[in-house]
């Protein structure tokens, strides 16, 4: 869904109006960046992902048939690029990441240890599980809205959300 009042901006942006697109970006940049940084755990990667996603959105916007689905579409752009970023990172940083995690677990205590455990568990999740948790728990998107955004039934959304949460809990347990 796109916010009431933004439909016109989307139409204008699709017609090539850069100012309209800037207004759309400005209203969504913080949330997009928070989403990407929460999924990736890296501000630098989130910066690249968000920039790429918005530029791709601009380029392909004229082809977006249902302009009311702009936000859902933008979200997909961001998540897909997060997925790509995680794949690239897996190839290039596999060893370094494991080392870093080992150090983290040695040094951490108390609340910091809890946060480190959550980080380790979260980073073992796939990007779709991460995305669901971010949308629901960080951005407080209700299940019904998530379902509309993902284009899947509400029951399926709940199931996926449940699966994401269960996966996180499982990974946490696995480390205890």
């Amino acid at each position, binding site marked *: 869904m796109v916010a009431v009042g933004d439909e016109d901006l989307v139409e204008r942006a699709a017609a090539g109006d850069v100012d309209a697109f*800037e207004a759309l970006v400005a209203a969504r*940049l913080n949330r997009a*960046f928070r989403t990407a940084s929460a999924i990736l755990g890296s501000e630098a990667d989130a910066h690249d992902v968000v920039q790429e996603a918005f530029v791709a959105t601009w380029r392909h916007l004229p*082809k977006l048939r249902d302009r009311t689905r702009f936000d859902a579409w933008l979200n997909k752009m961001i998540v897909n690029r997060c997925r790509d970023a995680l794949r690239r990172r897996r190839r290039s940083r596999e060893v370094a990441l494991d080392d870093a995690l080992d150090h983290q677990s040695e040094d951490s205590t108390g609340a910091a240890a809890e946060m480190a455990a959550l980080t380790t568990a979260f980073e073992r999740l796939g990007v779709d599980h991460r995305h669901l948790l*971010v949308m629901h728990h960080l951005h407080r998107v209700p299940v019904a809205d998530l379902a509309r955004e993902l284009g899947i039934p509400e029951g399926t959304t*709940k199931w996926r959300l449940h699966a994401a949460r269960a996966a996180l809990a499982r990974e946490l*347990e696995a480390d205890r």
Partner: protein
Amino acid sequence: MSQRTDHLTDEAITQFLRTRSADPDLALLSGIMDTVGAARQDRPWLWLRPIVLPRRTLLIVAVALLVAAMGAVAVGSGLLLPAMPEGPFEGTWISTSDADGGTQTMTVAISADGAVEMTVRDTIATVCGRTPSTMTGSGRIEDSNTLVIPSPLYTCDDGSEPQALSGPPLQEQLRDWTLFLDPQTDTLSDSIGGVWRRPGAEVPSRTKDPLVNLKPVWPQTSLEEVREAQELADDGDPRYTWQVLGLGPLTDARQTDFITRFLQEELGWEEFDVSVFPGLYAGVVQDGLWEMLAVRCAPGQTNPLYPDDPEGGGCAPTIDEHRYETVIIGAEPARPDDPSSIWVVSRWVMLQPSDVQVTGINYRDDSGPVVRRQVQQVVPASDAEATALLETLLQARVDGEGAEAYLSPSASQIPLLYATTSDAPYERSEFELVQGPVWPGGWREFTVRLFAAGGSTVVEQSFLVDRDEDGRLVLVYGALDPGKDVLTTENGGALAEPYEFLDGEVTFAAAPPWDWYVGGWGFTPTMTTLEFGDSYQLLAVVADPLPVETGCEDGRAPADAEALARSIRSDPDLEATEPVAVSIGGIDALRMDVVAATGASVCGEGGHPQVLAPAPSAGPNGDLGWIGVGLRHGDRMRLYLLDLPEGMSARILAIAISAPEPDFERVVEAAAPVLDSIEFHAP
């Protein structure tokens, strides 16, 4: 044993994600816009902004030149010629979407300095009580295809005030009224859903023409062909009625020969499979677009890797012994939401090979790296390999150690790994093949049985023999049917899983299908919610709840369970039965049934009457919205209220079981074992 606790609360996850996320730096917006400013937009062919003048404009120019020439002659002869439009917007337009029986006529005039004046006259205006109306306004052409009227003025010709039928005031709704021109069809669509055509232009049978965005590639290849085919299909012409697929469940491509004909006639495939298996890419309908995946099978060959699979057995790969030519096809109806619409293929693409080693696990993760890649069949485990793996695992479980090495992804999720619920060690085991190998992932599904206590206790579990991402054979606790939610039974019964509440002061057990409720904010330090089957069949446990007063205000903290029961009974928004004395976990409790009263106040984003509010200590409600225990009209709630023993961290406990009336008794019955299992552990 899998231990579920409420340790991982919503708040813990939220807090973690807040810590993990960040705000962008200020330079990001300018960086994006600098790039955007230099980037060209990709435009679909229908919306191409022409570099040269569109055909209609060229025609207008030619006619204008002709008219000018004729005008020069006419001046002398006294002939009066009609004025011709000078721009794509200019002139007269008739609405084709006015549903109230009136006629809306728009005239657009553009002065020499580029100023636009617009007038719309409506012979029957619903917003004026079906009397005539006039809308006027001046505006600007934003680009060659967009005209914006920032502040149109809408008046009823009889002097009355126009009344919007819904939503904001009419003037507000009309602000920045925008007309979009499709030069291909010479049609205007406006920002509130209207469609406008030139007087005398052919009007399609539908009030709005959805075809303007369709790009057919098969069997029709142009909009004109689609229009003609639709008309003939509407007349029952069998040459086109096979394209009418209805709007029902289109996710099984085998239900229609539409895809079959596409694959045979357009791609020239003799044999193919259009439903590789559920979960890979069986076909989805989204935003009116039906996408499905098909693989080509080698003609006349059987599949040596899957001789017994009903789908894959007759479908041998075409590229090499593993890989199939694979296509994704997108089809859509010419008239959305119309079951008599014909469907056309609007896109298709041959997929590329996967760049990772494909295993069964890849396929079961529908977001994984093989989705939208060529289908690649996995070499299934042989009978001997599967048997050896299972025997090794089961022997380790009987031995009491070492089973983890054969399990993926983690043994921690597998209940009763080495002993029964009563801690009886396993004495022997057996297994049987349920199905498989299943194409193309190579899975074999087994039921394993572990016997304890001289055979009087039997634990039965479901496992898949699968391959991990490195191609190594592993056992996965699971089943191929994603709807199978009971994977372990003990003596035929689903295992009750343990739950903790109030940091372990309250414990209970619930067997599937009772499960965590994920449809809302069901988890706070003082509230835990389970659902039974669906999100309308709930069991909520709430510590120190507050009554809810009319107007959705939290009531005052009650002195005890009896006071809380009195508050609920006196709430005019609720109808509650007289409390009955019962016992829960050895503690005296009050039981009452509650329904929402007619005309009850509604609270929260769910818009339902509420029964209980959370304790003030439950955390901030602000950005969470309203948390509490609510009741929909038509639902019934069984409520247990009890005073907790001295020394516990809460004084009152409420247990609410709610369900729609028709399901209520069944859900209450299913909740009985949960209530029976409740134990209190004073610190």
